[in-house]
């Protein structure tokens, strides 16, 4: 199969890293993968193509934006790929009823917005998959984990970059502030004098995007730069997807958070797996059952909610014990979430 991904490709966010992995693995399975578009100079390893006729399957990958291509291209694709050769991947739980979590995060702001998404996806294809490990709520949708663990990307401690941070959080400030403010900042406050550098790396931790409301709901970007300043938290800028794991490896501990909606729906993201490739101790803002669902029993040991300050200090003081837990998780990931397995699942999805 020659598979064309139609997606908003962003080097420092989204699903680009996952697709890059499929590109790399596809030839081993006798297939090829590319992203629709023209090459981008700063990500020369990504294969882009405008030659629609070269492909026989298409994957429309949607995140939080109803990504549209120009109608002339869409017409060519619709003619080229019959419905059975189209797959829709919904990474952000958009093909659902209206979901609002704690009166804060949501998949759609209005029923009209939801209807527009559903109409779009229904017109585009018959098969919608969500990036889940469990059966989705919506009867039309099936689960496809999509994101996975690639042991080849593991950073060898011997060649890891020097540790700059004690605690690092890699991710953009997109619906994460409530959790950060409620759980993490009070924990940091308690232990601030006992830990070294803390960093929140990504976009919008210092303030909302310059685009204003066009970038999304304002509450998604809430932040408190003064609290960060008081707690001596650094906010370096975002890095390219290809530098994420290396950057995570500059910290003794990495904290994984997930926007509330996706955690509520139990959607996977690439970050779930990247953080276990890094030379670091991942600590998880997930409840224990959720952590076990993805990471196996050992994952329970790495969760933070309700005990963040104690757990962070414990991990910093007992790194060997935590490294052992992390190794157990990695073994689980190799057994259950390898990209090789993901690639088989993706290619099989077209045959089912």
């Amino acid at each position, binding site marked *: 199969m020659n598979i064309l991904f139609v997606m908003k490709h962003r080097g420092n966010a989204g699903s680009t890293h996952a697709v890059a992995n499929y590109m790399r693995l596809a030839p081993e399975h006798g297939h090829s993968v590319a992203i629709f578009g023209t090459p981008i100079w700063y990500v020369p390893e990504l294969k882009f193509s405008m030659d*629609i*006729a070269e492909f026989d399957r298409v994957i429309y990958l949607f995140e939080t934006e109803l990504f*549209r291509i*120009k*109608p*002339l*291209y*869409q*017409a*060519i694709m*619709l*003619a*080229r790929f019959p*419905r059975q050769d189209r797959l829709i991947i919904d990474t952000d739980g958009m093909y659902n009823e209206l979901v609002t979590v704690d009166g804060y995060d949501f998949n759609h702001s209005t029923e009209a917005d939801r209807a527009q998404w559903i*109409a*779009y996806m*229904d*017109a*585009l294809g018959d098969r919608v998959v969500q990036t889940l490990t469990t059966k989705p709520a919506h009867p039309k949708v099936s689960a496809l984990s999509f994101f996975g663990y690639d042991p080849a990307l593991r950073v060898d401690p011997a060649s890891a970059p020097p540790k700059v941070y004690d605690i690092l959080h890699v991710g953009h400030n997109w619906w994460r502030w409530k959790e950060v403010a409620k759980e993490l900042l009070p924990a940091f406050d308690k232990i601030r004098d006992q830990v070294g550098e803390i960093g929140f790396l990504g976009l919008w931790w210092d303030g909302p995007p310059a685009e204003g409301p066009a970038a999304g709901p304002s509450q998604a970007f809430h932040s408190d730069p003064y609290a960060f300043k008081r707690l001596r938290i650094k906010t370096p800028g975002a890095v390219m997807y290809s530098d994420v794991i290396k950057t995570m490896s500059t910290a003794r501990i990495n904290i994984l958070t997930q926007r509330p909606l996706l955690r509520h729906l139990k959607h996977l993201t690439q970050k779930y797996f990247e953080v276990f490739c890094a030379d670091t101790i991942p600590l998880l803002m997930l409840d224990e059952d959720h952590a076990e669902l993805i990471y196996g029993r050992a994952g329970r040991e790495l969760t933070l909610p309700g005990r963040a300050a104690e757990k962070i200090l414990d991990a910093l003081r007992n790194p060997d014990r935590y490294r052992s837990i992390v190794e157990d998780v990695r073994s689980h990931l190799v057994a259950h979430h390898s990209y090789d397995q993901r690639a088989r699942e993706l290619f099989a999805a077209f045959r089912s």
Partner: protein
Amino acid sequence: MRILLVGTVDPWTRSVATIHKYVEWGRILGHDVSVYGSNNPELPRLPFTTDIDGVDVAIFLVQVPSDFPAMPGLARIMDQLPRAKRVVIDLWGRYNETVRIDHDFNHLEKFDSHPAWEWIDAIDALSDTVLQPTLAPRRDDVRSFLFHGFDPDAITTNHASARDAAAAWSEAGRVEKPYGLVYVGSNWQRWTQIRRILEDYRDVRDRVGQFCLAGWDWSQRPAWAVEMGLKGINTDPELLADLGVEIRQGIRFDQIVNLVSQGRFAPILHRPLFRELGLVTNRSFETFYADCIPVLMLPQDFVVSIYGRAASRLVPGEHLAAHLSAVMDDPEPYWDALLKTRQYLAENHSYRNRFQQLEGLLADREACGAAP
């Protein structure tokens, strides 16, 4: 037949008038013609729908990229209507190799982001049947269908004879005919021809009357044209001011004939690309509804093939000023030519004919076994 017209409809531009005629004549001839999309309060006479159940043929009217419907409509039409029920009318010659002539073009990536192959592949994606409004399509796989037509019921004033018409025309004062020439059309690849007309008009201006130029961007060269280096969109405000030309903004499609009727003459000109490809437009026919004398700024052989032999008299040749003076001196032979041309258009280019031609083309295609 249930016919669905697919394309953007804008009350100020492109084929909106012709689309109204298809709806109107469809009803008369027992067809159900509707336009794909949601109701447009600015166009209350057009029945819009997104229901494609029972559609016998979807006709894609392709001019600009936005004529391809946005999602999800595009997928619904393409997935639910078999190819055999889809037709493309390529109104601007997109389905050709790239043509560049006198700054005009059918493809220009820097302008609309689409090079030739994208237009051709996209039109191929829509249908196996591509029609162009020219008598001589360049490609073997394109068939001729002029699409635009002539509706004799739309003539504003029916004169009993050329003599009566000429008399009324000559006697009309400044109230009935405040303008000598009226041209309605936007400043898009037409400046070279308009300037030539203006230069000739200078010699007869006092006798013929004021020139009215209605359309977008005549008063100054738009910034976007300067930015893109598009030379076909030009103007000369000093020349226009010097000649006392009245500049108007664009006007709605349903006010054009009334405005044109306020002039003694109305030039009909086709942008260079359309001349090259022999494409007709709504204005090619619509100008003949107005109570004025069209000036056919078009090649003689093209005029004869579209308008009939009598229309030759309405072609000024190389000497526009002399032609206008000759008409002013003795309008009757020109009105005679005009009335005969209207008759020819009614006989050969009526919307009744267009529907018959369309049905014939669709039947031929079925006989040839169009792809399901």
